[in-house]
């Protein structure tokens, strides 16, 4: 089945080669980092986690969001999602591989990574995250392979896969919950010390994931004969709408608690994010864009007319993606460190090699996703003529 990813026209190969080039540049930058140390990034003693861990967090959400197609299809027998369920599972597999890669590039001693397995430590949330993520990867890879093989052979999927599919539903929730627990259990970091962090992660994931899936469906429709169908896309749009509303609601809850309680150590982080603190307004323009995009997305999605029209829906999905990427991929992690526990406004901005390594990881993920989708479409005989 894998060989199907190797057959394609010149446009396909141009895309593949472009991604490979970005991977190569990222890989070279990583070699540099591997030899010199994480000092080539913008990270430092005060902001110890940054862009890498933020991308990891964002992508765990993308991976978890596959449950938004799996659940309706397998649990509620919602047939319209039949064609796109596998697309969601492939997206999950690619996203998890990107997550693991971002963890790997963030390690000071990547060659010692297996120490996590050699010295299992259940009191560390990293231990549970490793189990959750690898388990989810295995589940989705297995489910995707078995269901697609059955489809190729023109038979229904074997009965034994059904309980595994059902298991993948709570497992999807667990990966983002445990990822939130990495942050939400630290007394040292008031910004993350909030019970709504895990629910908020899930809400933002269930908005951004379906938004990405809608955009992917639109792209695939243009480059192949595959059509997800307007009903399925419309339902995804409704899911993204609800999730985005809940996400914005949770953010407002956080703001209320921080601002009304008036506790400086809770307010100061939000000040840094939205107004600037101690003369540092690095993230302020980004966060304002994030808010504007959230408002735009909600305006377009809550109005049934614009939600159903393809081009306005695509704008809404891009807006969701942008808004949540800025929030999780840029603001959420770094702001936990600013101000520092000693009350200093530390500075952080990713360096060029740090960004190139991150781009390399994204390119590798896209490469995988492209190959997966190519295989799926080839099996269904829906590739471009």
């Amino acid at each position, binding site marked *: 089945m894998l060989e199907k990813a190797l057959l394609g026209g010149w446009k396909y190969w141009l895309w593949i080669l472009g991604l490979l080039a970005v991977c190569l540049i990222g890989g070279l930058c990583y070699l540099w980092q591997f030899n010199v140390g*994480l*000092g080539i990034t913008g990270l430092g003693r005060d902001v110890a986690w940054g862009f890498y861990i933020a991308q990891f967090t964002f992508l765990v959400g993308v991976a978890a969001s596959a449950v938004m197609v799996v659940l309706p299809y397998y649990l509620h027998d919602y047939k319209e999602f039949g064609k796109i369920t596998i697309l969601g599972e492939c997206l999950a597999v690619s996203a998890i591989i990107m997550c693991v890669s971002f963890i790997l590039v963030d390690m000071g001693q990547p060659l010692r990574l297996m120490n996590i397995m050699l010295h299992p*430590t259940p009191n560390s949330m990293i231990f549970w995250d*490793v189990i959750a993520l690898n388990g989810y990867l295995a589940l989705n890879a297995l489910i995707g392979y078995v269901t697609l093989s059955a489809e190729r052979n023109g038979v229904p999927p074997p009965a034994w896969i059904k309980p595994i599919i059902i298991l993948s539903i709570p497992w999807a929730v667990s990966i983002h919950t445990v990822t939130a627990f990495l942050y939400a259990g630290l007394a040292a970091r008031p910004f993350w010390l909030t019970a709504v962090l895990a629910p908020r992660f899930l809400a933002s994931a269930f908005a951004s994931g379906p938004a990405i899936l809608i955009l992917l469906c639109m792209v695939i429709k243009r480059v192949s004969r595959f059509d997800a169908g307007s009903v399925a896309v419309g339902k995804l749009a409704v899911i993204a709408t609800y999730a985005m509303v809940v996400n914005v609601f949770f953010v407002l809850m956080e703001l209320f608690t921080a601002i009304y309680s008036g506790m400086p150590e809770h307010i100061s982080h939000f000040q840094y994010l939205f107004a600037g603190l101690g003369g540092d307004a690095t993230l302020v323009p980004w966060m304002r864009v994030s808010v504007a995009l959230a408002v735009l997305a909600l305006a377009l999605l809550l109005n049934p007319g614009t939600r159903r029209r393809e081009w306005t829906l695509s704008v809404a999905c891009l807006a969701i993606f942008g808004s949540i990427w800025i929030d999780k991929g840029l603001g959420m992690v770094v702001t936990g460190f600013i101000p520092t526990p*000693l009350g200093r406004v530390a500075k952080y901005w990713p360096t060029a090699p740090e960004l190139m390594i991150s781009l390399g990881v994204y390119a590798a993920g896209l490469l995988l996703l492209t190959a997966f989708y190519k295989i799926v479409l080839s099996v269904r005989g829906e590739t471009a003529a």
Partner: protein
Amino acid sequence: MINRKEFLKAAGCAALAAVTGRWAAAAETASKAGRPQSAEEAARPRHERRPRASRQWGMAVDLRKCWKDEGCRDCIAACHQEHNVPDLGNPKEEVKWIWKEPFEHAFHGEGHDFEKAGLGDLPTPLLCNHCEKPACAKVCPTKATWRREEDGIVMMDWHRCIGCRYCIVACPYGSRSFNWRDPRPFIKKVRAEFPTRTRGVVEKCTFCEERLAQGKPPACVEACKAKALVFGDLSDEGSEVRKLLKSNFSLVRKPGLGTRPKVYYLAP
């Protein structure tokens, strides 16, 4: 005869017991690691074991004495020389085991509008607090940092650390440093008796456990001419540090977080 339902119940209970039993056993071995136990002690039933005689190292920083010479850096120099701590000359990548921080940052959020003039600027020595409930050790995914039960020192294994920096994220005191690049070229004079570190691992103060093993006080304590750093066994009521704490007003950093620091500041 038992019926199907009863059988399933019994089987379920047995499976659960097996699983929880294994967990309990694993947890017990983990908590015992690094804590030698006499054969006699181990032979007793669990509930009859006596609490082991153990120390709890701690330090009192007498700020009155320390602030007599605000420019003094003797403790820092002695510690950093003793432990091959590099001087990178770059605050972003700084490695430090003991350092000074203006009082308002050392005790961030504790000040008020009408406090003693100039108090906030006074340089206050900071180091690892060797917490009784160390957040760093709790989050470490490889047990590369842990609290040594017999003397309360929060230890660090530079050979096991994977450099994930979760401990730095979890520490509320900024007491941990990461080697953002190879530290060796930045060590002024390498002391052969103490290991140097490699890039990509975390390090911090260990209360000079290697000196304590030889019956010597920590290097910073020895170097302090003002005798502002008082080190001793907190579990011994007669120790100097306990006497000082009993007779003086003292502070610990961020007591509300429940970490129970073992470095105390005697307030002026």
